[in-house]
């Protein structure tokens, strides 16, 4: 493992921009081989969509419910995990939502930009694990 960070936020959309700034700072901080610049946009997109999902679907806008976010950089992969109190997510619509639909793109985006996505419930807590293979 080359880098690890874990923290909690409230279920509040005000964290979205700071989260993107944080992941951008990590990318600048670590070795380019561990977090290439080309991985920054996909990881930012997936993280924002996963947190959106936790805020609006898992926690239904209840601000006090915490969302835990972890980022691990290890040989050959960037792994982000978003943990919430929800019941998990369904499978994304493939090949994608109806083009004129104004919702339902979040999960599709995550699956489009990440190499592997897993959603599981552990001890009543939902974990969305998103892996970007380098």
């Amino acid at each position: 493992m080359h880098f690890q960070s874990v923290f909690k936020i409230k279920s509040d959309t005000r964290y979205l921009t700071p989260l993107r700034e944080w992941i951008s700072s990590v990318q600048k901080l670590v070795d380019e081989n561990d977090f290439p610049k080309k991985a920054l946009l996909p990881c930012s997109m997936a993280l924002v969509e996963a947190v959106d999902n936790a805020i609006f679907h898992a926690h239904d806008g209840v601000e006090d419910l915490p969302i835990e976010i972890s980022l691990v950089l290890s040989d050959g992969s960037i792994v982000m995990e978003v943990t919430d109190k929800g019941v998990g997510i369904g499978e994304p619509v493939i090949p994608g939502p109806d083009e004129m639909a104004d919702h339902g793109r979040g999960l599709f985006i995550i699956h489009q930009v990440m190499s592997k996505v897993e959603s599981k419930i552990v001890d009543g807590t939902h974990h969305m694990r998103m892996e970007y293979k380098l």
Partner: protein
Amino acid sequence: MNIEVKQLGNVQVIECGGSLDADTVSGFKKIAYDLVSGGSTQFIIDCTDLNFIDSMGLGVLISLLRRVRQRDGDVKVVSLSDDVKTIFEITRLHRLFDVCSDSETAVKRFDEIK
């Protein structure tokens, strides 16, 4: 997020700066929908200073597009940054919206329809 509205003839130009995401989408929505309620049907979304858009931001653009196309209008998207252009391509919205290089080009496209 910074939003400014300018008018070029009958075309409303909404200049967006920063991030159009779940946190900022309601402000954009109110401004855009108020313009639609006031009779505007031709929109340019100027993304020169827009650095990020999430699925909820994309959703409100699609919702605006649907509303104005019902009234024979259109929403044209201009001056996409590399990141926002990539997001449009990943979500295939570059095929749904008329994406133009700049506002001048977009206004000409509206004029061609007349």
